[in-house]
């Protein structure tokens, strides 16, 4: 940071977006190196798990950390054979939880955010503060009461018990409200109303298309948060076949007394689990509207 002391031409920086700079210019060395160090720090553990997944269990402890081993195919075979293909079930469960949960949550949040942003109605303030409180509430402390509630209505141990609590995301509603506020012009809504559209129609044919970028962001945030969720499924589920990946991998690590932990399986399992999600993140990165979280908040 301290390097950028050389005076630079005033017009160096193009408009707000700062597009890729002409290659002919001299590279700023220190910022570049600092960022590459950051990148290295973030990639090393991922590189490790990819390398480690190629090692047989004896190579894991005997060869240098970053030397690939010879056991990749065998590890993969073990992984997919474990518990009659349980690993694939975990992947599938995670996809279902995160996919269905995130889609539904996005719809719920969009509708709520839209209502809060574009309507004035009794109870709006109360609803908004309730949601704000929900954002600040540590969701994790709710896990125990949620379990008891699920038990009371007979859902503990079912897919629903993990899926339903994921559908409500105060933060998602909050983002949707911010986005609806800035992306859906009230005039356009009024125009549609004058043309005879009712509220439902205004929402589906005017507001919804305008809110798509914001919805993608809410979807991705919620997808990742459900995918990474550990405590809720850990508490709610008791059948290994219904576990999502995070809980499944955890159980490989802590099998309890009298059963050795399956470290090599956990490593290959982690490697296989990371690859698609990282790929998805990279592909979808361009659709993120994270300025929603920051830019939209300037009061």
């Amino acid at each position: 940071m301290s390097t950028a002391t050389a005076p630079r031409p005033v017009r160096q920086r193009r408009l707000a977006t700062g597009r890729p700079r002409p290659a002919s210019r001299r590279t700023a060395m220190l910022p570049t190196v600092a960022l590459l160090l950051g990148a290295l720090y973030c990639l090393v553990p991922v590189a490790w798990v990819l390398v480690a997944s190629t090692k047989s269990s004896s190579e894991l402890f005997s060869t240098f950390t970053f030397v690939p081993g010879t056991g990749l195919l065998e590890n993969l075979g073990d992984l997919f054979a474990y518990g009659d293909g349980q690993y694939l079930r975990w992947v599938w469960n995670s996809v279902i939880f995160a996919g269905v949960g995130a889609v539904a949550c996005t719809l719920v949040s969009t509708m709520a955010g839209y209502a809060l942003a574009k309507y004035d109605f009794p109870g709006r303030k109360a609803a908004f503060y309730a949601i704000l409180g929900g954002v600040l509430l540590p969701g994790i402390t709710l896990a125990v009461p949620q379990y008891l509630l699920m038990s009371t209505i007979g859902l503990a141990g079912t897919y629903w018990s993990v899926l339903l609590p994921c559908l409500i995301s105060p933060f998602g509603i909050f983002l949707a409200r911010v986005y609806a506020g800035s992306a859906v012009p009230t005039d356009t809504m009024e125009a549609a109303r004058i043309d005879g559209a009712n509220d439902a129609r205004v929402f589906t044919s005017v507001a919804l298309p305008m809110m798509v970028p914001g919805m993608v962001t809410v979807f991705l945030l919620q997808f990742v948060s459900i995918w990474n969720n550990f405590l809720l499924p850990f508490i709610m589920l008791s059948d290994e076949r219904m576990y999502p990946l995070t809980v499944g991998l955890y159980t490989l690590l802590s099998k309890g007394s009298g059963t050795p932990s399956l470290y090599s399986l956990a490593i290959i399992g982690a490697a296989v689990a990371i690859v698609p999600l990282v790929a998805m993140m990279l592909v979808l990165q361009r659709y993120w509207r994270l300025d929603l979280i920051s830019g939209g908040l300037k009061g």
Partner: protein
Amino acid sequence: MATALDTRPARRTRRRWVAPWLFLLPAALLFVTFLAIPVCYALYLSFRGMRVSGGGPFGVRSETWVGLDNYATAFTDPEFLAGFGRLAIYGIIAVPLTLGLALTFALLLDLPRVAGARFSRTAIFVPYAVPGVVATLLWGFLYLPSTSPGSWVAARLGIGAPDVLHGAMLYPSVANIAIWSGVGFNMIILYTSLRGIPAEVYEAARLDGANEWDIAYRVKIPLVGPALVLTGLFALIGTLQVYGEPTTLRPMTSAISQTWVPLMTIYRDAFTRDDLSLAAAASVALALGTLVVSVVLLRVTQKRSFGEVS
């Protein structure tokens, strides 16, 4: 923001009253069912307790009203309180470093003439896609002497490698996992926020003879202030909820107890010790603490982050 919330005088007052509530209905139902009711239930439960009712050495226990017993137990449990102390040490390491690194990287990315910025940005963001349990697994192996690259090199050089899973090194080791997972996401938020600043602001500063350092310090950082407050708030809430990382690391070191952080104590009480009421009381206390911390933080920063309803 205020403009976005403009609402025209409603012509069809009644309809505009019903429609928003219909839009809000699914969210409201879910909110009440999965947030409001559990909160109330936790509150109720925190005043209850399991007590032996029948006679005999193996009398079965049943639930009764115990008043503030659970709160008293929670707040006189030295281990629960010590957990907050450990949490504080962990938080003092993790929160500033996560935010500091995220801000530094965001500012660096925003500088002109940085090579490979796209690659670095993407790489730093990658850990966000790695679940906490998996992140802990990866770092755990990098910490363990038999698989750590550091120990391998140290052994070849004939020197001892530091034991990062015991003693004072434990805190930075656990915090590092959170930092690793959190930097990328926060960096992207701050970076997008930086890119949202109109170029004219910089042009003006540059015309005044400001260098990039001045611009970063005097212009950019104040302008991303609201985003910083928000990321800071989330980092803080995240810290109070630390659970997964130390729990997953626990089998690898005896230095992490079952009560290492408050949430681990809550989990232990609820599930290992079957004392849901005590866990509920501790949860209520933790949730209230989080709310207080959040509100204070927002007050201090003058509510710049969450827009008020007009």
